[in-house]
């Protein structure tokens, strides 16, 4: 999945010569917290909500001095950016490692979008299949190719769509599991079919576990 698919287009930007009061107004009106600063289409800086909001306890006069400053004097520059054809994983790592919550998406020096940690988070939620109705099945998978083959065969014969497949190796035990979400209410039939092919399906048991 590429950044392009998850980013917000139609980004509102602001010019470096405008005041912090202007920037705060734009953010309040548009209900966002990050504002790329562009000089004649070229990205020159980044502003976040806390850069523009006057600190508490200022007098009216001090507030007016604070908010009257130009954006150029407080914006962050140079800017961390991603490209629209970077992978979503790249964007996630960039946000996480730099402890930032939004990054402009830039192609040929021009801002074409913005991606926030919440966009990335939502996309990952979608990838786990959390938002589609389905039956979640957890399988032990010491032989991953064989497991996937069996999963595919069962999906075909049961007319049960595969919504998502995730696989992970347990960080302590080293055991590999596969989590498949089948887009079907007929979970018990699918599970029975998986078992009949010798797969180890983790389901709740009436007796105590382990």
């Amino acid at each position, binding site marked *: 999945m590429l950044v392009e698919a998850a980013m917000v287009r139609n980004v509102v930007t602001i010019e470096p010569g405008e*005041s912090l*009061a*202007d920037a705060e*107004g734009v953010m*309040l*009106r548009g209900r966002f917290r990050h504002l790329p600063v562009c000089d004649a289409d070229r990205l020159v800086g980044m502003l976040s909500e806390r850069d523009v909001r006057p600190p508490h306890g200022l007098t009216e006069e001090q507030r*007016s001095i604070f*908010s*009257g400053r130009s954006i150029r004097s407080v914006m962050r520059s140079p800017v961390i950016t991603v490209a629209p054809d970077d992978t979503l994983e790249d964007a996630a790592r960039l946000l996480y490692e730099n402890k930032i919550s939004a990054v402009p998406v830039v192609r040929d020096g021009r801002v074409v979008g913005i991606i926030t940690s919440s966009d990335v988070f939502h996309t990952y939620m979608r990838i786990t*299949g*959390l938002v*589609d*109705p*389905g*039956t*979640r*099945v957890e399988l032990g998978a010491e032989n991953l190719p064989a497991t996937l083959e069996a999963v595919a065969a069962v999906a075909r014969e049961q*007319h*049960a*769509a595969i919504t998502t497949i995730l696989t992970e190796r347990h960080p302590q035990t080293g055991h590999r599991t596969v989590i498949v*979400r089948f*887009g*079907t*209410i*007929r*979970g*018990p039939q699918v599970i029975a079919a998986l078992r009949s092919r010798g797969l180890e399906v983790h*389901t*709740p*048991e*009436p*007796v*105590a576990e382990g």
Partner: protein
Amino acid sequence: MAACRSDFIWSPQFRTYDFGAEHPMRPERLLALHDLLRRTGALDGSHVRTVMPPAAAESELLLAHSEAYIEAVRRLSTGAEDRIRAEMFGLGEGDTPAFAGMHDAATLIAGGTLTAARAIMRGETLHAFNPAGGLHHAHRARASGFCVYNDLAVAIAAVVQEHEAKVLYVDFDVHHGDGVQAAFYDDPRVLTVSLHETGRYLFPGTGGVTELGTGAAIGYSINVPLAAFTQDESWIASVESLMPALVERFQPDLIVSQFGCDGHTWDGQAHLRLTTAAYARAAALMHELAHEHCSGRWLATGGGGYEPVRVVPRAWALVWAEMASVTLPEALPVSWITTWEPHAYGPMPERMVDLPEISGTIPRRPMIEQENASTVARVRELALSPQLRQAYRPSGPWTPSTFPWLPTGRAAVAETAKGAVHLRDRCPRSLIERMHVAEGMQAFSRSAEREAAMLRRIAERPENNLVIAHTAEGEIVGEVTLAPGEGRWLGLDSLYEAAIEIAPGWRGAGLAETLLRFTFEPEFAERLIVIAQGISWHWDLEGTGMDAWTYREQIIKLFATAGFEVFPTDDPEILSGEANVLLARVGKEAPHDLYDEFYRRLHRQSDWIGF
């Protein structure tokens, strides 16, 4: 309890909702139920009617489904081959495959639940049961989990639109009631409660305790995911620990309960271990709560149930017997057993109410019970404790502080010279989506379609208050919007801007005045300052024979009825037209500092905070 008037919704055509011989949802389950009720005399009695419902009209289906989806169902019902369309709308091979006649069969079921709900709301009957209904997985534009049209969402939406009613929906099916929850997720007029087996191992995977609703409706979706292998005692304890408190707080006008019985221990589609006794107990509680809190208005439907002969007929006969106060025999009629035995998936039961032994011994029982108890405790805390609920609330003057607990929107019926209209405030997006805008209502948007889109956008933000007047048929004929002030008014808490529009066909009937009065009726309005800008180029002077100055006087007079006065200002937008005017309503309890700031900003040469 004396026997109450009860409608049994039945049509021989219910059997046509049939996905084919290999499919787990068997139409025989309904026939076996009907036969059992007939043989036990449960449908006799002067207080009982058997009602044959009409199919739902397309306009009624549109209350819960998109036009494109209905069109797809219709096309695929003729046997048309259209793989891509079928897949797109959830009607491909798999759970809910298209079949010939599907549209008619599903429309009849929706008509059944709708007919039942209307009969109850009109007072023609007190209770009603539609065993074919309960298709709770159908979504707005997607069939899912054996459900094509969501009869429950159609019926509830119709009740909410046609009456000043709050509806409690309770879902006992083993699967999460995701379709109904989604239909009313932003609407505090409908409280949805679903008890189900946890989605960890079961379709549809949703229904966690933190799915609470959205916007002004946070706290109006309640989910109780129970552990696999839960037995009667723990299930009943969960129901009894939550339902009375929720009903008491919500004070519904109608209770709708879905009695999917696939949580029964013999049902192969899930892992709960219930018996028919659990459903009988849940029905008794619903019956009691309906009489205690909503004058007995109670609608029940069927739902999931995949032991077509051994479980479904008995579970639903018990629901009906509770509703209609019929006494069923302890032992099943022998003639019934022999008739239906060939369709059974195992040895036939002999008793109506199962003995607890049939659910077997579960070694993990104490752990399961503890797990469920802690889930219920968590739900109680989220749903019933005001502090915690507020943590999930978006903030803003229209939300927590100005509203008491459970801030459902208000509703009223007003008689005008052009007929009766329903008034509602704090309309959520889903409600607006189900209605249409009257022709000519486009002063702010220049087309009816864009007007509807604009209203949806306004409705979806919890900081706004959208007040509408609509007909019982769902036509919006007037609206007042209240939104936080913009431009020079930006950032002032408790300062709102009002705008009003009345459809051309409804002008001159006193509706504008009625709508404004209704809007500013609540006490919290006195804590706000509300402005209204009269900008002459928005005015629809055509056909009024008025010039802008006369119209201006009319507007001032109209807003004066709701306490607005004219305030002079240097706002360039107001100054740009001679007839323009700024009106404001300063609430009697508006804070002094708010008034001072408002007064200061009336005269500001520059547009923003004025540096």
